[in-house]
């Protein structure tokens, strides 16, 4: 034990030196091939399209950014958990409900793990899921519109980190608790942590149309549940969650939660859970939560409130959960494409612990239990162990796989990627990252069919990689070519927010499904205006609804009078365009709000409360056409209770 500690200490020191020396290593930025060959590999000529879509989580930006690979071109930022004034997300009346929670309107979250939906263990390009870490939620993005269409809140949880990893047919996306709390919530002392604080593991059912429901939660001991992955092939039906802080400490976790030599990977048999649910072995717990759903037909989101969840307790459900002892606060848990190997990355160790699924089943049937925690059997580690990858790197975090039986593991402390062989566990190659890699991503690298070819390193520290921009920098991603024996660095690019994890899918899977416009005749918005003949302004008390249209290059109406100070004005603006890439913007001077950005065939609503008498201009804020600068209008605002007639018009013909 002491020897190991000493070894780690030496490694750690070595790694610090390595990191320090990296700063001056300018070769690293060019790759061993020289920049010419690398440039050719990432060059996507103007007008040509990338090979892959990559979806990078925005971390503390709360959003998802979409990049093309191998060029590293930023294609889009999709607002998910944070308001986005550019797209009026969380500002217009249609998307405000998306950010509703039981706490009220939450304008921000921390988004970590994008996860593509899968069919038969292969990413299918229907949806992208992503977790909200701070106020526990899971969002679903529709990959025909690249817009967030659903956000579901997770009750009885906090710190939704091990989420939203999918099962191989997207039966469920899962969620775990990072910060165990009293369940149900109550006002008790932190000193009563042990035993009274709980973590939940949630299984969120995904229906065929994508709609999410909380199927059940498993009430677990008060550990920190960190990451997860579901089984494949034979191990389909199981989901594996890493946990640390099995010490159940509530303070100074950097020391207190690092004491145990081994923590656990919790293996959850969700098919058995379904059976227990069917048999009624659950408790119904009062747990209010909210689900927000965006309907593409009405272009509007709505909020539903739910009151109860079904909770399974492992002590009442034998065989539901087992603990696999895994050294040193395991972080990532990754399942190889065959589904046989479960790779645990002890983030304070130098080694990867690989469990075998078949050995695990055998150990369970032979009852090779070492211990029991809160009614959950702890398996004998030797009985489940398939192998150990002795890498001599330090701080392993995450593993992805290629199609040739190799694993690629990120090492945070030694800031490197190590490639190793499944089965023999030998290390084949290693390459430094700039700097301090967290997750890494291979297209399909967490699925049954890795496409391989590229590996994207998602780094935590940027320092001198790009031109300096003051103290605050973007994060860094590095692209490696992994088609050969040696990993080759071919591209380095800055990212938006902190990309924790990413997913990628061949471009051809998504291109043909990507919508170009919304069909005007299919617009079912309650306040749609489908032609200029139908525009109107309707007053009901102090609520004024303006039914407005946009088409190149004018608004209808563009002159409105009879609005009064203190009115609550709703501009329901419909974009009548039906051509690809002709959005119109709508901005009102002094509005305590964002602009609107309305796609062809869409209706969006801006809320505005005029404050002073006068004439307020509005205009199109998205350069739409040759006469975009002429696309403007006026609203006359009169004193409260004035006699100004409510009128509207466009042009002078009438």
């Amino acid at each position, binding site marked *: 034990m002491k020897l190991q500690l000493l070894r780690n200490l030496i490694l750690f020191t070595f790694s610090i030196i390595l990191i320090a020396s990296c700063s001056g290593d300018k070769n690293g930025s060019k790759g061993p091939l020289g920049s010419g060959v690398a440039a050719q590999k990432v060059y996507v000529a103007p007008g040509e399209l990338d090979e892959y879509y990559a979806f990078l989580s925005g971390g503390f930006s709360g959003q998802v950014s979409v990049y093309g690979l191998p060029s590293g071109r930023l294609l889009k930022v999709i607002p998910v958990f944070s308001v986005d004034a550019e797209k009026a997300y969380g500002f217009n009346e249609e998307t405000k409900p998306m950010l509703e929670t039981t706490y009220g309107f939450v304008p921000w979250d921390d988004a970590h793990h994008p996860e593509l939906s899968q069919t038969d263990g292969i990413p299918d390009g229907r949806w992208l899921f992503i977790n909200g870490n701070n106020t526990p939620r899971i969002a679903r993005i529709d990959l025909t519109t690249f817009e967030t269409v659903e956000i579901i809140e997770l009750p009885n949880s906090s710190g939704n980190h091990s989420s939203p990893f999918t099962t191989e047919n997207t039966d469920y996306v899962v969620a775990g608790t990072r910060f165990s709390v009293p369940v149900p919530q109550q006002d008790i002392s932190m000193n009563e942590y042990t035993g009274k604080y709980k973590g939940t593991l949630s299984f969120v059912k995904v229906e065929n149309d994508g709609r999410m429901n909380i199927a059940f939660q498993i009430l677990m001991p008060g550990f920190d549940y960190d990451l997860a992955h579901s089984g494949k092939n034979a191990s389909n039906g199981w989901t594996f969650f890493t946990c640390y802080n099995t010490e159940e400490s509530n303070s100074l976790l950097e020391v207190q939660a690092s004491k145990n030599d081994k923590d656990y990977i919790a293996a959850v048999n969700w098919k058995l859970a379904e059976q227990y649910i069917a048999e009624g072995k659950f408790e119904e717990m009062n747990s209010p939560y909210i689900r927000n759903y965006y309907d593409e037909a009405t272009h509007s989101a709505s909020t539903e409130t739910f009151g109860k969840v079904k909770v399974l307790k492992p002590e009442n459900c034998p065989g539901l959960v087992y603990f696999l002892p895994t050294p040193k606060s395991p972080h990532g848990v990754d399942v190889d494409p065959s589904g046989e190997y479960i790779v645990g990355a002890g983030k304070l160790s130098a080694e990867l612990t690989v469990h075998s699924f078949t050995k695990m089943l055998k150990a369970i049937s032979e009852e090779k239990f070492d211990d029991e925690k809160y009614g959950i059997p702890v398996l004998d580690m030797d009985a489940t162990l398939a192998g150990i990858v002795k890498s001599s790197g330090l701080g392993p975090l995450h593993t992805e796989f290629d199609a040739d039986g190799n694993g690629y593991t990120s090492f945070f402390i030694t800031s490197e990627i190590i490639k190793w062989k499944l089965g023999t566990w030998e290390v084949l190659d290693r390459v430094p990252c700039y700097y301090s890699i967290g997750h890494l991503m291979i297209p399909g690298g967490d699925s049954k069919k890795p496409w391989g070819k590229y590996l994207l390193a998602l780094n935590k520290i940027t320092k001198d990689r790009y031109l300096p921009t003051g103290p605050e920098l973007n994060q860094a991603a590095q692209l490696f070519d992994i088609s050969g024996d040696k990993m080759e660095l071919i591209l380095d690019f800055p990212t938006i927010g902190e990309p924790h994890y990413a997913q990628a899918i061949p471009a051809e899977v998504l291109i043909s499904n990507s919508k170009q416009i919304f069909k005007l005749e299919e617009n079912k918005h309650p306040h749609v205006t489908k032609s200029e003949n139908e525009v109107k302004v309707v007053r009901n008390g102090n609520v004024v609804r303006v039914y407005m249209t946009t*088409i190149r290059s004018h608004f209808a109406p563009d002159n409105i009078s009879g609005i009064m100070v203190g009115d609550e004005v709703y501009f329901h603006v419909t974009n009548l365009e*039906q*051509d690809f890439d002709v959005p119109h913007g709508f901005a009102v001077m002094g509005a305590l709000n964002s602009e609107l950005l309305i796609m062809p065939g869409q209706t969006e609503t801006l809320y505005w409360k005029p404050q002073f008498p006068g004439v307020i201009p509005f205009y199109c804020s998205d350069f739409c056409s*040759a*006469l975009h600068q*002429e696309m403007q209008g006026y609203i006359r605002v009169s004193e409260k209770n004035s006699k100004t007639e409510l009128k509207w018009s466009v042009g002078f013909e009438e």
Partner: protein
Amino acid sequence: MISLPRISMLTAGFFLFLVLLFPIWKITLIAPQYPRGMGFYIWANKIVGDKPGTLKNINILNHYIGMKPIEPDSIPELKYIKYILLGIAGMAFIMAVFNKWQLNLVWVIIFVATIALAFYDFYLWEYDFGHNLNPDAAIKVEGMAFQPPLIGKKLIMNFTAISSPMLGSLFIVLSMVSGVLAVFFGIRQKKV
């Protein structure tokens, strides 16, 4: 009795009938912002865009130069031309019954004259769209006409306009050729 001139006239009528089932002409507009072009098809009885929104999009662009919108409902020819073509096709069948080369020749002359007239009418419409512009248009170019070519390619401002015959035109030609052949075979039979 089955004879070559008769078969040719029947074929001529049949081809003419086919004209109604396919577009006759296509006009495509290509610009840097529209690398794949926006095109619309002219049938005997309708004008349709290559995509649902195309006509609307072309009309939006044309309104900047003051061109009238292309509204199929306001073009009367689209309502009656199909009956004229059906009539001529029917005539061909009647001529086949009589099987006289002189009558066949009359038919060919009527047909050719009708098509020539239709073509001239098409030109007039193009001229009207290209020249009768709204004086209040946002974009006015002195001396510039926006008339698309009758056939072939022409650069109009930032757009390359391509005007080309489609399958329907091929059937018109085939019908004409069959009619001419009927006359030809009829004269030859007479000599023999």
